[in-house]
C-alpha cells in the first residue's frame, strides 16, 4: 500500500478516470455539462496574433470598427500558449514551415486551425513556386478553410461562425472524450 505522492496521484487519476468514463455517472455528468462547456468554447475563440501576408491586413481590418470581430469575443493573443486558433493567413514558405509547425505544437489543447485565403489553402497565385508549401494542410490539420484572395473581413468572421458551428456539432464533453489530438 505504500505509494509515493506522485504514484498515488496517478493511481487516483486513473481510477477516477476509469469509473467516470465507463459508468453512467460519467455520461450523466457529461450530459449536464457538455452544453455549458461547448457554450464557453464557442464564445471565447482567441486566435494567435500572427500575420503572414495580405490576409493579415484583412484580419486587422476585421477587428477594426467597421467589422468589429470583438463582438464575437475574438481577441488576438500574442503567445501561442494562450490561444485556441491558429489563423494561417498567407503562403507558407519552406523557411517558415518548421516554425509554423512549432507554433502549432506550442498551443494548448483544444486547438483549431483556420486556413485563411488561397495561399494558405493551396499556395494560391504562388502555387508550384520553388519556395512555397502547397497548402498548410500538408503538415497541420485544418478545420476551416476560408476562400478568397484576399479574404474579406466579412468572410473571415463567417469563417469563425462556421468554426463555432463545428465545435457545437462536435459536442465534446470534458470526461468521456480525450481532447489531445493523436
Amino acid at each position: 500500500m505504500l505509494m509515493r505522492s506522485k504514484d498515488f496521484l496517478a493511481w487516483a487519476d486513473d481510477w477516477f478516470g476509469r469509473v467516470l468514463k465507463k459508468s453512467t455517472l460519467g455520461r450523466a455528468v457529461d450530459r449536464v455539462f457538455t452544453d455549458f462547456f461547448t457554450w464557453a468554447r464557442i464564445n471565447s475563440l482567441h486566435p494567435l496574433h500572427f500575420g503572414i501576408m495580405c490576409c493579415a491586413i484583412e484580419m486587422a481590418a476585421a477587428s477594426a470598427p467597421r467589422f468589429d470581430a470583438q463582438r464575437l469575443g475574438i481577441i488576438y493573443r500574442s503567445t501561442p500558449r494562450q490561444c485556441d486558433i491558429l489563423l494561417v493567413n498567407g503562403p507558407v514558405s519552406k523557411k517558415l514551415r518548421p516554425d509554423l509547425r512549432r507554433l502549432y505544437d506550442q498551443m494548448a489543447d483544444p486547438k483549431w486551425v483556420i486556413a485563411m485565403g488561397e495561399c494558405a489553402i493551396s499556395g494560391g497565385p504562388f502555387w508550384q513556386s520553388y519556395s512555397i508549401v502547397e497548402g498548410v494542410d500538408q503538415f497541420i490539420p485544418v478545420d476551416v478553410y476560408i476562400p478568397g484572395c484576399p479574404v474579406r473581413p466579412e468572410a473571415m468572421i463567417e469563417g469563425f461562425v462556421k468554426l463555432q458551428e463545428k465545435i457545437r456539432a462536435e459536442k465534446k464533453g470534458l470526461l468521456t472524450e480525450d481532447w489531445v489530438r493523436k
Partner: protein
Amino acid sequence: MDLWGISYELTSFLIDIINFFIYGLGWLLPGVLGDAFNGLGDWLASTGVLNILTMIVEALIVLIVAILNVITLIWIDRKLLARMWDSRGPFYVGPLGYFQNIADGLKLFLKQVITPSKADKLSYHVAPVVFIGSSILILAVIPLSPGFALSYERAPIPGGVLFAFAIFAIAPFSILVAGWAQNNKYTLIGGMRSAAQMMSYEIPLLLSIASVFLLAGSFNFGDVVEAQANIWFAIPLFIGFVVFLVCIVAEIERIPFDLPEAEAELVEGWTTEYSGMRFGFFLMTQYIRGYAGCAIAAALFLGGWHGPSIIPDEIWFLSKAYIVFLIFVWMRASLPRIRTDQILDLGWKRLLPLAMINLIIAVAMKTSGWF
C-alpha cells in the same frame, strides 16, 4: 444589521437544521452512540464553533461580492474601451456581452495546462497561487460600509490599511518568481521590469497614504472614512491623491504603465509560457488588484461610503470605486505605453518629491489644527 450579524444568524440557522437531525439521531439511537450524537450537537452549537463557522460564511460572502465586482469591472473595461475605440466590444454572449468574461474564464479552465520541460516546476506552479492568493487577501480588509466589513464579533480589523498595502507588496515577489520559473527570456525581462517598477512605486504610494494616516490619526479603514465625514481628503491632499492614482496604476500594471506585460515587445510579458487556468489566474488577479486599488482610493481619498443617505452606503462606496476605475479605462484608451527608464524616472524624480510636498502640507494642516 451588519455583515457579522447576518452571517451569525445564517450560520446558527444552518446549524439548527443540522442539529435537528443530529439530536434526532441521538434520541433514536440508544446508549453510548446516542450520547455521542448529543455531544456532537452540543459541540456544534457552542460559541467557539459557531464563531469560526460564521467567519467562514462571512469570508465567502465578501469573496463572492468582490468577485462579482471584479467581473463587472472587466466587462466595463471591455465595453467602455470598445466605445472609446468606436467599436462595440463583446456583444452576443449574455445581456450586452456581460457573460463574455465567464465564457472566457470557463474556456481557460478547460484548456490544457502546459508545463514547459525546462521550467522550474515548483515555482512555476506556486507563483500563480501566491499571486492570486495574496491579491484576494486584500479584499478581506476593504469595507464597503460600516456594516459590510469582515470583522470578528463586530470588532473591525485593526490596521486594515497597513495590512492591505503589506499584501499589495507581495505581488512583485510572485511575478519575479513566475518570470524566472518559466525559463524564457521575455518572461525574465518582464519579471525584472515588474519588480523594479512595483518596488520603486511603493515608496511614493506609501508616502501619499502616510499623509492620510496623519490627518485621520488611524490605520483603520473605518476611522479613516469617518474622518472624511466633513471633507474628502482628496481636496486638501489633492497632490497626494494624484500621486496615489498614478502609483496605483503602476502597481496594477495598466497602460500607460503596463510594460511588464508589454505585448508588443515582450509577447504578453511575464505570462508568456503560462497556459490554461494558470494564465486565467494571472489575468483575473490583475483585475482583482485593480478593484482593490480603486476601492482603496475611494476609501482613503473620496470619502468612502459618505454621501446623501438616499442611496445605501455600499452603493456609494462602489460607485466611487467604479468612477476611479473609469479614469483608468480612460487613461488606457488615450495614452501610449511608457518606457522602463522613463517610468523609473517619473517615480523617483517626480512622484517622490510630490509625495514629500504632500506630506509637508498634511503636517502643516495637522499642526495648525484644521484636522
